[in-house]
């Protein structure tokens, strides 16, 4: 494969390949574990609520839950990939091997971003493949499913790069995970429709970018959602551009990487 890559592209391609291998070497932790967690959520919530809750007409609660769980896992794992790789190599000092190379800040960004997208999509695909063994899941719009999965993982991959560059310790990274990523994903409508919330919380939900990613992705399956998928796609797209711009600025300035 590497013989097909031009010498100019070989640098970023190598970094991308290394990042892929890095998570694949520990795939029990980076792929199997999040798939297992999502399936446990599915088992417990569907068992408890399937006969009591119906969010959309003609859609059972368990079916409703699956796209949300898939997307939540896609987002969390895309974030975890870039952020944990960066903080680990910063703490271990091995980031120096990349910093000494002629790779540009844009190439650095794209390699980490692409690996995050792949990990997010691999985890999401695994959950989907296991879930459809048990539950009949319709697909209304392939395009929206792919667009939200790709853009959502890219958005969180970029956010992970920002967090990885900013954090100096594992403790700070854990704070990012527990106080930003987890609450935003749990309060995004994975387990419910925001129409079931009081008006104040519905309004608050509209400020959560995770809500748009989950709702748009779910629209791709059922053709129904809390908000227009076009609006969601725009919010997610603009958020991705903003975070990418911030991550690229940090990398270009050498923030916390080059003194």
């Amino acid at each position, binding site marked *: 494969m*590497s*013989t097909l*890559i031009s*010498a*100019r592209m*070989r*640098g970023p*391609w*190598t*970094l991308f*390949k*290394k990042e892929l*291998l*890095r998570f694949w*070497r*520990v795939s029990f932790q980076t792929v199997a574990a999040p798939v297992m967690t999502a399936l446990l959520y599915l088992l417990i919530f569907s068992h408890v609520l399937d006969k009591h809750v119906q969010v959309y007409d003609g859609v059972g609660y368990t079916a409703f839950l699956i796209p949300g769980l898939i997307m939540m896992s896609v987002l969390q794992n895309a974030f975890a990939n870039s952020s944990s790789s960066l903080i680990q*190599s910063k703490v*271990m*000092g*091995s980031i*120096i*091997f*990349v*910093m*000494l*190379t*002629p*790779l*540009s800040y844009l190439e650095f960004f794209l390699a980490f971003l692409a690996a995050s997208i792949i990990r997010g999509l691999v985890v999401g695909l695994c959950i989907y493949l296991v879930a459809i063994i048990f539950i009949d899941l319709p697909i209304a719009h392939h395009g929206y499913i792919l667009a939200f999965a790709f853009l959502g993982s890219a958005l969180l991959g970029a956010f992970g790069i920002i967090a990885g560059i900013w954090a100096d310790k594992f403790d700070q990274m854990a704070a990012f995970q527990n106080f930003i990523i987890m609450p935003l994903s749990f309060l995004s409508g994975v387990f419910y429709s925001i129409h079931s919330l009081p008006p104040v919380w519905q309004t608050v939900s509209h400020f959560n970018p995770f809500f748009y990613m989950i709702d748009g992705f779910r629209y791709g399956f059922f053709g129904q959602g809390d908000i227009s998928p076009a609006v969601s796609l725009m919010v997610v797209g603009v958020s991705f551009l903003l975070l990418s711009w911030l991550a690229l600025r940090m990398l270009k300035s*050498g923030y916390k990487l*080059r*003194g």
Partner: protein
Amino acid sequence: MTMTPAIKIEQVTKDFGALKALKGIDLSIEQGEFFALLGPNGAGKSTLINLLAGLLRPSSGKLSVMGHDVVSQYAQARQLLGVVPQELVFDPFFNVREMLRFQAGYFGRGPENDAWVDEVIESLGLTDKAHVNMRRLSGGMKRRALIAQALAHKPPVIVLDEPTAGVDVELRQTMWAFIQRLNREGHTIILTTHYLEEAEVLCSRVAMMKSGQIVALDTTANLLKHIPGKQLRVTMAPGSALPAGIAALVRHRDGDVYTFALNDVAQVADVMAELRQAQLTFTDMQLLEADLEDVFVDMVGRA
């Protein structure tokens, strides 16, 4: 036509807040040189290397590698430079050969470079460990792998920042034999080390740094001439007080061991005569040539 210097450093300063780590460094290292950068801890050697490598940015001044500015033409400059960092860092996910191939890949090298990677592995005595995870290597082996990583893209300019810190004699010999071979083949080598005897044997030119400045820059041979004549090391009986006539000749004192700086061998007789006259006894005596360590102590102590 003059050859482009391997390294050119012009009026480089680096401040960390109020701390002035480098105070206007000027230095030119020619292609093919084996150059030593010496200095006590905190002298600014690693800061200078980090500036060359692009890990730090200068507060003012310019640095270039083979004519390429390390800031504005960083990609070309880094292509030409291999740096062995001082800290024993490694990536725990991969084995030695994988790490070296990745490292070469970052520099745009593909499968055509694999033969060189294998040669580096063999030359540094890493063949048995090529498929061992970096995490499982001993400290010495990790150091070898670190050196191999800096050489993976076959750079013409190689910087070794304390490469032999805490490593055994066998590695030192293996490593220096390989580095000397690279130097003979035309690679420029820049070395920082605390082992001054290594610098004396290997390097043709030396810069000594102290407090962010270069306090001495010359060929090793010329620097050694700074300490004239011979040195006489005498171990006195405990509690002896030297007579004033020879106390002025003392260069160092370490307990009862006195090192006298002599203009010539004939002065040995004068020292002995003074000691005899003062009825002092000594238990050991050695006549020594001045080495780089003496020059270092003299230069850095004086600056």
